[in-house]
C-alpha cells in the first residue's frame, strides 16, 4: 500500500487519487517539520516506524474513515531523515459535502497520531537529539 514511505510526499497526486465528479469537497491536512518544538530550535528530525504494523494500522484507519463518512481518503506518512519544511504526513479526504470531508480528514490525522507506531527524534539547534514523547511519561534528552 505504501502508506509509509521514505520518499518525499507529493500532494497533487494524492489529491487526484480521491477526486471524482460526485465529490464536491476535498479536505487536506499537511503536517510539516517545524523549526521549533516546546521553545527549542529544531533543525531536522528522523521518523522511524514499526513498518508492517504501521502500514496495517494506517490501512485500518482509512477503512474506518471510508466506512463512517462514505469518503474517499488517502494518506502518506514519511519516515527517515527530514529537514525543516519537509512534509511529514499528508491526509486527503473527498466527499459529496464539506462536512464529511473535514470530519474524515480530521479523524484520520488524529488516529494516525494516536495509534500508528511511528516515532520521531528531533535534532536541535544546540546539537542534541531527543525522541519526542507526546505523553511525557518517559523523560529523556
Amino acid at each position, binding site marked *: 500500500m505504501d502508506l509509509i514511505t521514505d520518499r518525499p510526499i507529493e500532494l497533487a497526486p494524492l489529491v487526484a487519487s480521491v477526486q471524482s465528479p460526485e465529490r464536491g469537497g476535498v479536505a487536506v491536512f499537511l*503536517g510539516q517539520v517545524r523549526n521549533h518544538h516546546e521553545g527549542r530550535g529544531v533543525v531536522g528530525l528522523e521518523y522511524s516506524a*514499526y513498518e508492517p504494523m504501521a502500514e496495517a494500522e494506517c490501512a485500518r484507519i482509512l477503512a474506518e474513515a471510508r466506512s463512517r463518512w462514505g469518503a474517499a481518503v488517502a494518506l502518506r506518512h514519511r519516515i527517515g531523515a527530514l529537514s525543516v519544511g519537509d512534509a511529514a504526513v499528508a491526509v486527503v479526504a473527498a466527499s459529496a459535502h464539506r462536512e464529511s470531508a473535514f470530519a474524515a480528514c480530521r479523524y484520520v490525522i488524529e488516529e494516525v*497520531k494516536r495509534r500508528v*507506531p511511528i*516515532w520521531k527524534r528531533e535534532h536541535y539547534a544546540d546539537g542534541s537529539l531527543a*525522541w*519526542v*514523547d507526546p505523553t511525557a511519561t*518517559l523523560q*529523556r534528552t
Partner: protein
Amino acid sequence: MTTAAPSVVTVHVLLFASYADALGVDTLDLTLPAGSTVGTVIERLRALPGGDRLPLKPLCARNLAHAAAGDALVAGDQIAVLPPMAGG
C-alpha cells in the same frame, strides 16, 4: 517417547526508538516458561541492563496488533514494545 506440552516458548521481541536506546538492542529472542504472557516479556526486559527505563506497562503489540499484558504467548510470536507514538 511420549508427547508432552512444551515446557518453554521462544518469542521474538522488537524494541523501538527510546526503548531500543534504553536497552541498547532493537531485537532479541526470549525463551520463557510455558504459560508466560506479554507481561512476562516486559518483566524480563525490565530486568535487563537499562530496562528500568521502560515503563511498568508499556504499550505492546503481538503479531502486528495491539496486545494486552495478560495475552498468553505462543512460540514464534513477534512481541513489539512500543514507546509513546509520535507520528504525524
